[in-house]
Every structure is written in structure tokens, then in C-alpha cells.
């Protein structure tokens, strides 16, 4: 068996390299993030969560949505360990994670995690939201090992 690779600390990709765009369906999520509130798109009719936000509830076809403030905790569903900064190709250890959001069953986010070594990230690991300022004054939810 191969020894697991020792990567060292998992870092967040620099916010100044990250740009997003919004539309009327997604903007409430990003506006809440600016206020350091983690939310997810919830159907106001049937309560089903959906992410990314979209114009209709895929369960009941309602257009009405709520944006509940979530606890900001989550569980790692899966991940990869990457070693090059996509902006410039330089060595950079970061761990993209797919998380299940507490308080919003079925809603996922894709982010980076920090606060531990990359080789210690595991499926089922508990994480808490960590806010990263990105381009154009927006704020991105990343995560830190709980």
C-alpha cells in the first residue's frame, strides 16, 4: 500500500482571484452572504430546498421562495485535494469540498475548507462557514474545520 501523501495545511483560494455573477434568482443568496448570513433557496409553498437557486420549485412548481438564515454549519459529502492555483498554475494546496448544509436538507454548496491539513479532510467532517471577500464587493462562503 502507498503511504498517504502529506500535503500540509489546506488553504482557501485567494478571494481577489474569484469573480461571480448573479441573476434575480441567485442574488438574494449573495446579498445574504455579504451580510455574513448563510442561506439557501427554500420553496415557500412546500418547503423543498434547492441550490443553486432557480425560478421554480422542481417539486411543486411554485415560484415563491424563502431565504432562511441557516446555522452556518455543514458536513463534508465529498472532496478532492488539488495542488495548483488555477489562476496562475503555482503550487498551492487547496481542498474543494461538496457539503450538505445543516438546516437545509438536500441543499449543497461547493467551497474550499481550511483549518486543517489537506490530508486530514474526510467525508463526514463537520465544518463551519468562513467568509471570503472576493471581487466586486461580493463575499463567498468557504468553510473551516469545526
Amino acid at each position, binding site marked *: 500500500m*502507498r503511504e498517504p*501523501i502529506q*500535503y500540509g495545511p489546506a488553504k482557501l*483560494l485567494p478571494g481577489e482571484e*474569484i*469573480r*461571480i*455573477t*448573479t*441573476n434575480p*434568482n*441567485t442574488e438574494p443568496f449573495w446579498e445574504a452572504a455579504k451580510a455574513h448570513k448563510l442561506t439557501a433557496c427554500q420553496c415557500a409553498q412546500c418547503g423543498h430546498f434547492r*441550490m*443553486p437557486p432557480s425560478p421554480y420549485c*422542481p417539486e411543486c412548481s411554485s415560484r415563491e421562495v424563502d431565504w432562511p438564515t441557516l446555522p452556518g454549519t455543514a458536513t463534508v*459529502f*465529498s*472532496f*478532492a*485535494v*488539488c*495542488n495548483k492555483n*488555477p489562476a496562475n498554475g503555482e503550487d498551492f494546496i*487547496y481542498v*474543494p*469540498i*461538496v457539503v450538505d448544509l445543516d438546516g437545509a436538507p*438536500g441543499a*449543497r*454548496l*461547493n*467551497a*474550499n475548507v481550511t483549518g486543517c491539513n489537506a490530508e486530514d479532510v474526510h*467525508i463526514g467532517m463537520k465544518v463551519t462557514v468562513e467568509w471570503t471577500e*472576493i471581487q466586486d464587493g461580493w463575499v*463567498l462562503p468557504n468553510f473551516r474545520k469545526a
Partner: protein
Amino acid sequence: MAWANQDKTAIVGVGATDYYVRGKSWPRTINDMAGEAILKACADAGISIKDIDGFAYYSTAGAGYLDKFDTASLMETLGMPNISFSATLTSGGGGCPGAIGLATAGLMNEDCKYVVTLMALQQLPQHRLGVVFGSAAPNPENSFLQPSGLVGPGHLMSVLARRHMHLYGTTQDAFGEIVMATRANTHNRPKAVRKAPLTKEEYDASVMLADPLRRLDFCLETDGAVAVITTTMDRAKDCRHKPAVVHACAHGGQREWGRAFAWMGMLDPHFASSGHKFTADRIWAQSGLAAKDMDVALLYDHFSPMVLMQLEDYGFCEKGEGNDYVLAGKIRYDAAAQGGVNGGVPVNTHGGNLSEAYIIGMTHIVEGVEQVRGTAINQIKDAEFALVSGGPASLPVSSLILRSA
């Protein structure tokens, strides 16, 4: 219930350019390479370019991911007098063999007589597929994925592979076996890009790009063009070669897979899958066949773990047993016996996207045609049925069974 169009059409011509390492096809242009593939496919079929009257594309008529095919431009270039069918499947490479079903739809509707399905790919620095997700301009949808730094398809699929390892104990050794077994099929193929035999030590030493996936788990980045011609069975009988009969074909998928790794919202067991269960079940229902009835499986192998997950989705083994199936040697081709190993069905006898070339799935169709014609370089003895798959990718993915005439 048997498919209404079962054995009504056939692939009668295949044509391809050389395969080039990414970017090396320049100064050829997309239409130059596409033209060569189409003209060679016509010659292979024994028909004139003037007979072509239909185009059934996939990947939203993409030539790579930034260029687009245009039927009018191809007519202007190649001189077809009339076109009476011009259509495409949506999304990306997942639709590749499904385009043969689209061609069949046009033929059975009597819209057209000879239909071209085509891909040409030229990855100049600004057109490179390997970083396509990272280099795309941000939009409201990808703003929920791109900031995580999952820049390429391989990075995205490493997340699916990780979940499969977690749920089923799947090992990187199985991914390595897929890469090595595929490589073992290219030493005798003049056009293959990677021909040198590959040892386990070399695989293990391959650089990690997106842990758990190594560089060698990623497919080739190549340039080139491939075209195939589909026609009705009555016309196929007059063509040069034995027809490769379209026995079953399906595209689509289920919502639980959806945009797949461009979304990451799939719940278990769909997340750690190839998203092919829906179209697999459709072609088995269309044909009354099962995985064990296939003589060869040409599975879209952009990333090695996705071969393992397709083996499960098509039923070559049970869900979660792909690791053991692969490590038992069951995807290998035994050249001496012209057949499988240890009761398995040989996979990617042409070397696949991992070792021969990556032309977004078309090389798998070509190999399926050659196998059921009986003219493949790594021929399966008396091959009757060849399975061809497209994807995993965002829906539609697709599946095709070719039958010897």
C-alpha cells in the same frame, strides 16, 4: 418491448484524420479536418459526398467546446447539393453515440438518406478542454461551482471517485488497472497517441492532479476529426462493408443526475455513479439483452474511475463491486484467445480516450463498427454485439448497441 427501429439502420462508413497531441493539428483548420473525416467516411461507405443529405450532431453541434459546426458552412466547403435533416443533441460529449439514434430518427422519418455524425477537435491554447470549467466566464449558475477551484472535468470527477471509494472501498489500484488494461491495447495501433506499455510502478509514480486522481487517470488531450455515416438497412446492403446494424440506442437520463459534476447536487447512490443507469436500462429493454451478452464494451473513458462506475451502471457487475471486477482482470482483452479474461467482457479494445485519442467519444463508435464488421485491430472472435457509451457528463448521456449484419 423491442425498439420499433431495431435493426432498421446501420453505420456504413467511418473516417478519421490522424490523431494529434493537443494543439499540434495547427495550421489545419476545424473544417479542413472535418472534411477529411467526412470524405474518408464516404469513401469507406462507397458513396459520393453528394449523397450526404443529413447531419446528426451531438454536443450542441460543438467542435470541441468553443467552436461550432455549421451545416451550411460544411455544404459550402464540401458541395452537398441538398440537406434535409440537420439536428443536434444538446449538452456535451455524453450524447456521442446517442447521435446515431438522432440519425436514425431522421432516416426513419424519411427526411434523409445518408446522415453524417461528426466531431472535430482542435485544442489551441485558448480552446483547451482540460480547463474548460475554470476558464469559462462566470455566470450565475457556475458561480456556485467555479469559486471552489474545481477547474477541469477531472477535478470534478475526482470528487465523485472519492465518494465511490468512501461508500464501497474502491481503490486507486482499480483505477490503475483500468489505465494499464487500456494501454495494453494500443501497442499495435499505429494511430494511438500512447503506445508504450505501462507498469504499475509507472502508474503509481504519475503525478497527482486532483487527489485521488493522477495524471494517468485523465484522458489524452488530442486534436483530430472523426465522422461516421448512418443510413437505412436497404441502402446499407449496397455499401462497401458489412453494415454495423443499429440494434438499440438511447439518450437522456434522470433528474437525480442532471447537470452532474457541474452541479454536485446528486444524492446517493447517483453521486458515485456514471449517471448511465437510465440509458443502460433503456437499451437493455429495447434489445432484451444484458451486459453479459455484449462481446465488447466501448465505454467513454475520459477519466478512469468513470469506466468502473459504468461497469456497475450497465450491469457488468453489481453496484459497489466495480473494484473487484476490474482487479480480477475482467476488462482485459486476451489477444491470443481473441476474447475476454476471467469471464469478463473486454473494454476499450482500441485504447480508448486514455491511450488512443480523445475525440469526444467518436473513436468508441469507430471501434464498435470495426468490431462488428470483423476488421478491428484487436478483434474479438465472432463479435456480434458491441456496446458504445457516451458520458458521464451533464445530461444527456447515451448508449448504443451495434450488431453484426
